[in-house]
């Protein structure tokens, strides 16, 4: 049967079938892993109140992953604008099949978890909620598409439905107290209300996009961007191509990591001001934030490593600049280092202010964080670099496929190793396995660094002074690792792991030029 609902559902499933299957498996991986670990430790008790929290959080994560995959598999709505169908028809048949699939996937996942782990998690409520959430978020996306309001709109829609979902499990301001066992007529009416609101908003939004109308605007964002964009840089002259490219990399990507840290700090401080204003909590939050900088390195590496306008492959404009791949790669690394350092300094200043507040309240850091060691602080700076620079180098090679394969392989090996160590080994055997694994990872990092250095050297992409500086830096970091492992009383495999990770800090000096030269000349 050829009809609009049929072809739109078919297109959604056909565009990226493996992506949908992957999302379904991925969305269930975390609950399965977590519940398996808990069951292995004898901790799965359906009546445990902590299980309610786990259910709420996991069901929201599962819903988010599945809804995002379905949304992605539908492709841009603009592809439907030239078809002889009304905007209302397009919106209806974009939303309904995706909503039905999302509800079925969430419901099916919950049923499977209930069957596998003997749980009694609610099925219907979360399934209906994800359908309404998908519609609301899509509507917000279309209403605000290609405007600066998109982040606010999508965030607000997600927050609205997320808060409503959380409210079904107890008071909003407290931890969940009970399961959402019964979906009442009032609940259904509210969800239908969300869906109707979403449909109306989506019709307005898609209609606007179809006509090419701009969203009504006060021009505040344009004014702000205009002010931010002014300055001496537009008329700046550069002393060399390398200096010009330094400016280009920093101007285009350098702001991302500091901006995220600043945003995180602002939200954190705002939340703290609204809360109990305990300076100890603020310091604890900032210390944890220092660790989170390393995770931010993942994003930083991606941002700096993507060199093309439409993805990983370098564009022809950049590729034809008369500058060596080595110098171009060094521009990327310099801008990345500057970005990491700026983000870290923002965090450090905030921490110092918090420590001053702590001191004023009559506490010191030792009282708040008794286990905090001296190496924590340099690690908050080196950590983001060790993550971001190798990821940037990997991206600079210009192949999304190779990058995804590497990330999937590393993640797969980590999960498999973790699962094997957790579920298949005795306590003693697990310890030996973990130490061997640590040593192996360390040796792999050292070997990989040596290999890329030899390759880059053969292609004349790294000079001798750079190699000497890299070797000295590695020795210095390894010295720090030795002191830290001695301080911790850790076994020798941890020293090898630390030394291997230290090698990752200097590997980009050779890996980035090598990757960029592969990207530039195929």
């Amino acid at each position, binding site marked *: 049967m050829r009809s609009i609902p049929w072809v739109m559902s078919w297109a959604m499933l056909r565009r990226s079938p493996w992506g949908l299957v992957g999302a379904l498996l991925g969305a269930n991986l975390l609950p399965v892993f977590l519940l398996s670990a808990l069951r292995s430790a004898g901790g799965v008790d359906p009546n445990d109140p902590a299980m309610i929290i786990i259910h709420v959080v996991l069901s929201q994560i599962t819903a988010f992953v599945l809804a995002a995959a379905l949304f992605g598999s539908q492709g841009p709505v603009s592809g439907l604008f030239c078809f002889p169908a009304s905007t209302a028809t397009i919106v209806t048949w974009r939303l309904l099949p995706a909503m039905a699939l999302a509800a079925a996937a969430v419901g099916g996942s919950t049923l499977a978890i209930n069957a596998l782990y003997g749980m009694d998690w609610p099925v219907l409520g979360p399934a209906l909620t994800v359908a309404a959430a998908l519609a609301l978020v899509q509507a917000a996306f279309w209403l605000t598409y290609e405007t600066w309001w998109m982040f606010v709109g999508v965030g607000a829609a997600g927050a609205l439905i997320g808060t409503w979902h959380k409210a079904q499990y107890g008071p909003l301001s407290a931890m969940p107290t009970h399961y959402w066992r019964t979906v009442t007529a009032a609940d259904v009416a509210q969800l239908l209300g969300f869906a109707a609101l979403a449909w109306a908003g989506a019709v307005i939004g898609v209609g606007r996009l179809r006509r090419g109308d701009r969203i009504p605007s006060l021009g505040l964002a344009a004014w702000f961007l205009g002010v931010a964009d002014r300055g001496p840089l537009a008329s700046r002259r550069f002393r060399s191509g390398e200096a010009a490219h330094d400016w280009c990399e920093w101007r285009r990507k350098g702001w991302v990591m500091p901006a995220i840290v600043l945003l995180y700090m602002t939200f954190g401080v705002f939340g703290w001001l609204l809360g109990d204003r305990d300076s100890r909590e603020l310091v604890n939050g900032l210390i944890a934030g220092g660790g989170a900088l390393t995770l931010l390195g993942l994003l930083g590496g991606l941002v700096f490593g993507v060199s093309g306008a439409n993805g990983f492959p370098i564009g022809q*404009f950049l590729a034809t600049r008369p500058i060596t791949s080595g110098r171009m790669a060094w521009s990327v690394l310099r801008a990345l280092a500057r970005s990491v350092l700026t983000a870290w300094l923002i965090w450090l200043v905030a921490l110092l202010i918090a420590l001053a507040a702590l001191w004023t309240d009559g506490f010191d850091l030792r009282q708040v964080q008794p286990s905090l060691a001296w190496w924590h602080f340099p690690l908050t700076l080196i950590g983001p670099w060790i993550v971001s620079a190798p990821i940037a180098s990997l991206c600079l090679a210009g192949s999304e496929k190779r990058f995804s394969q590497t990330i999937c392989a590393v993640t797969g090996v980590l999960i498999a190793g973790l699962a094997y160590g957790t579920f298949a080994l005795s306590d003693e055997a697990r310890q030996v396995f973990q130490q061997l694994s640590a040593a192996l990872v360390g040796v792999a990092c050292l070997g990989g660094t040596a290999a890329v250095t030899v390759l880059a050297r053969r292609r004349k992409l790294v000079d001798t002074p750079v190699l000497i500086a890299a070797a000295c830096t590695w020795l210095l970091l390894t010295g720090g690792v030795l002191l830290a492992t001695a301080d911790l009383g850790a076994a020798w495999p941890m020293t090898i792991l630390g030394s291997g990770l230290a090698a990752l800090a200097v590997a980009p000096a050779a890996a980035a030029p090598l990757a960029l030269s592969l990207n530039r000349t195929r």
Partner: protein
Amino acid sequence: MTESFPTPAPPIVEVQRLSRHFDTKAALDDVTLAIPRGGVFGLIGGNGAGKTTLIKHLLGLLRAQSGSVRVLGLDPVANPVGVLGRIGYLSEDRDLPDWMRVGELMNYTSAFFPNWDDRFAAELREAFDLDGRAKVKGLSRGQRARMGLLLALAHRPELLVLDEPSSGLDPVVRRDILGAIIRTIADEGRTVLFSSHLLDEVERVADRVAIIHQGRIVLTASMDEIKESHRRMTLRFEQPLEEAPPMVGTLSREGRGVEWTYVCSGPEDQLRLAASAIGATVVEEAPLTLDEIFVSRVRT
């Protein structure tokens, strides 16, 4: 058909037996080509013929799988700075950094080229009607093409490589400005290599032409020689024929009965002799346009 080389100076581009495969598809198949210094060289071919792949090899963006490439006497992969610093390049996809302003992009690009001529760049910006404060992202397709052209020209390169330069340009800019620029550069003794499938344009400005088809160079010669050596001949036979007999130098033939039209390549007197050898008399003879020559060449 290959004409004798027009100048004793070493060629600015020298490609020897270059082959390139993408998976199993041969994008370039044993290509040998020499582009002399000075003048305008047109590289013509249909979509997917291998024009852009060949140009990417000249710029060092693709490594030769077999064969060799020399540009300005250098290997563009081994010495990218030495080659790219002396080349102006306008890419087919008009890939420019969207986030920069026109003025910023000019300043950024000028830093790479010691020969960048600020006055010339400003003149070009004026002529191309580009606002220095405009974002590249906001430029129309035609404006992007003009911006790319400005960046390729302003450092007065020894070799200007234009990949489908007319794409996106309106007819006035294409005919008046682009044509004038190309001729000016050639008159200054520099070299222009441009690829196009707009054959009337190539015919108007090119001194020499290479036709590339399915990854192979099927013809390289000066424009004059190409025009002289290709003609359409209408032949009359004594008896009506079901099928016209083959003739030396024929690229294509069509007609019916006693009158048949042959598209031929070769010296005029030899073609006339060949016509009489198959029992036909030449009743009409006309020169071919480059478009007709291209079509007849790629169809054989």
